[in-house]
């Protein structure tokens, strides 16, 4: 199969099917409802499960139940919906079940607006659920990359027995781009006999599996947290992904930006180059774990005098950028958060405003 032209939301749905995930539970919310609409047609074709739950809260537990029963499962939502799912996410993480969540972000806080935004960065990377749980967070910058990340997300979720979240913005969900699907994956988590509640008969075992998150003994609870922490540390070793742009030049400014915003920054960098100002870009593809060392090393080039985090938020990733830079260079922020995506011209003004 060659290239097809697909809306980000449809492509995400199709990518999950190609990843062998035939189980989808969801609740409608703009700007990602097309995933549900697409899968309500596609899942019956492939013999999969499609169910529209009664609320995002319920959906997060349908995901939990299905994941704990050893099935490959995912859901999609948008910012307020993810907030409602955060309780379930915490339970799933504590119980060490694999699942994939997609957040097609819209503007907030509160009901906010339906236009694209990156205002859930802190929620996704640091506060996705109570109790200090962490998810592997991946951020695509286009439809093709959204497809690839969704297809990577399932094996990663299973490798770590931890949920993975794809953080896209409304534009990625709504725009159409040509996509090419990678080879399809097999369907079920391979390690599930050790933990999934598939019924003892299916495992030909007398040992039962118990999926739980309640640990009354403080020592046991601490141990469970140590196991989770060890997984997060391993993610830092093995899963960090990022892309660089125009970093062969002697850039004076380094932009850190992700998702749709990074594409606007690339256009701005091209235009600035024509004007004679070299600017580099580093685009984190994983937001947790954050490419801390790569950002620091990229900023360490002699020509580089300033770092700026450009986001469709009031400055969230900038906190991680500051931590990465460790005070070695000035770090500033530029962004907007109402659904109005900054233009290349605005980015150019922001970079020029640094006066380097």
């Amino acid at each position, binding site marked *: 199969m060659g290239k097809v032209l697909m809306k980000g939301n449809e492509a995400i749905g199709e990518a999950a099917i190609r990843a062998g995930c035939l189980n989808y539970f969801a609740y409608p919310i703009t700007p990602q409802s097309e995933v549900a609409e697409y899968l309500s047609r596609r899942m019956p074709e492939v013999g999969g499960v499609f169910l529209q739950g009664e609320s995002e*809260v319920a959906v997060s537990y349908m995901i939990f139940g299905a994941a704990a029963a050893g099935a490959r499962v995912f859901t999609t939502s948008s910012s307020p919906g993810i907030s409602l799912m955060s309780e379930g996410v915490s339970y799933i993480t504590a119980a060490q079940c694999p699942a994939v969540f997609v957040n097609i972000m819209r503007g907030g806080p509160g009901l906010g607006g339906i236009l694209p935004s990156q205002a859930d960065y802190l929620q996704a990377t640091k506060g996705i659920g109570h109790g200090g749980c962490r998810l592997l967070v991946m951020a695509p910058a286009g439809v093709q990359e959204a497809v690839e990340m969704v297809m990577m997300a399932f094996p990663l979720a299973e490798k770590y027995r931890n949920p993975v979240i794809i953080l896209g913005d409304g534009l990625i969900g709504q725009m159409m781009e040509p996509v090419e699907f990678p080879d399809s994956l097999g369907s079920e988590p391979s390690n599930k006999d050790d933990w999934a509640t598939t019924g003892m008969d299916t495992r030909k075992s007398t040992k039962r599996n118990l999926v739980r998150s309640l640990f009354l003994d403080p020592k046991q609870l601490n141990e469970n947290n140590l196991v989770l922490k060890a997984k997060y540390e391993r993610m830092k070793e093995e899963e960090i992904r990022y892309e660089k742009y125009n970093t062969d030049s002697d850039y004076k400014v380094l932009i850190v930006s992700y998702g749709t915003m990074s594409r606007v920054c690339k256009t701005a960098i091209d235009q600035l180059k024509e004007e004679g100002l070299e600017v580099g870009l580093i685009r984190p593809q994983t937001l947790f774990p954050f490419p801390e060392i790569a950002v620091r090393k990229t900023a360490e080039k002699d020509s580089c005098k300033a770092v700026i985090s450009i986001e469709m938020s009031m400055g969230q990733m900038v906190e991680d950028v500051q931590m990465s830079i460790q005070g070695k260079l000035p770090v500033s922020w530029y962004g907007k958060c109402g659904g109005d995506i900054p233009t290349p011209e605005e980015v150019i003004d922001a970079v020029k405003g640094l006066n380097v």
Partner: protein
Amino acid sequence: MGKTFKKPEALSDQIMHYCPGCTHGVIHRLVAEVIDELGIRGRTVGVAPVGCAVLAYNYFTFDFQEAAHGRAPAMATGIKRVRPDLMVFTYQGDGDLASIGMGEIIHAANRGEKFTTIFVNNAVYGMTGGQMAPTTMPDQRTTTSPFGRNVEDVGMPIKVAELLAALQTPGYIVRQTVLKPKYINRAKKALKKAFTYQMEGRCFSFVELVSTCPTNWGLTPVEAVKWAEEKMLPYYQLGEFKTPDQEE
């Protein structure tokens, strides 16, 4: 001489933590007996509640999942949809099912999810220390209704079985109790019927069991049974409210 009394295979050896006079132990045993008799232990998954029975999985010997407060029907939906061959039941109390989880139970019942819910109604939040539940009786004193449940203020106790029976989707909806031996056989029959409907892939099945909480009611076990019989049973009437056969 043959054994006249033995522990069901589906029940573990662990000593239960429940208070004297609590009915959870009896209900656990009935569930275990039914599972043994139907020979489904190897393909059963239970969903444990939040509430006094949060550790129910310690007393059974098959796969279990632990739910958050009220969410057991959503979890059971997830399991049953992806593994229709499994036998799935939720075990829930009144605070869990009739308050925080009302949305989940109504929608699961209305979708006709093919699992079984065992609803233990003792008119009080047990785990958190005897607060008022949606099923607390009028004028019943609890730690959050110290002057008795004022129905003018918080409404009448919810009759969950009747509420679910009103849904148009076919289902098996029944209320029984385990207060005395004479009721226990009927309760067991209801449980067995519920699991059988599930085995046949017929419908959603729901068994409400009127129950006691001597500790939080401040009554001796004997008084508690008497109170439940006198105060609860006239309001929470026993019987089948709906069977899938009626619909056809």
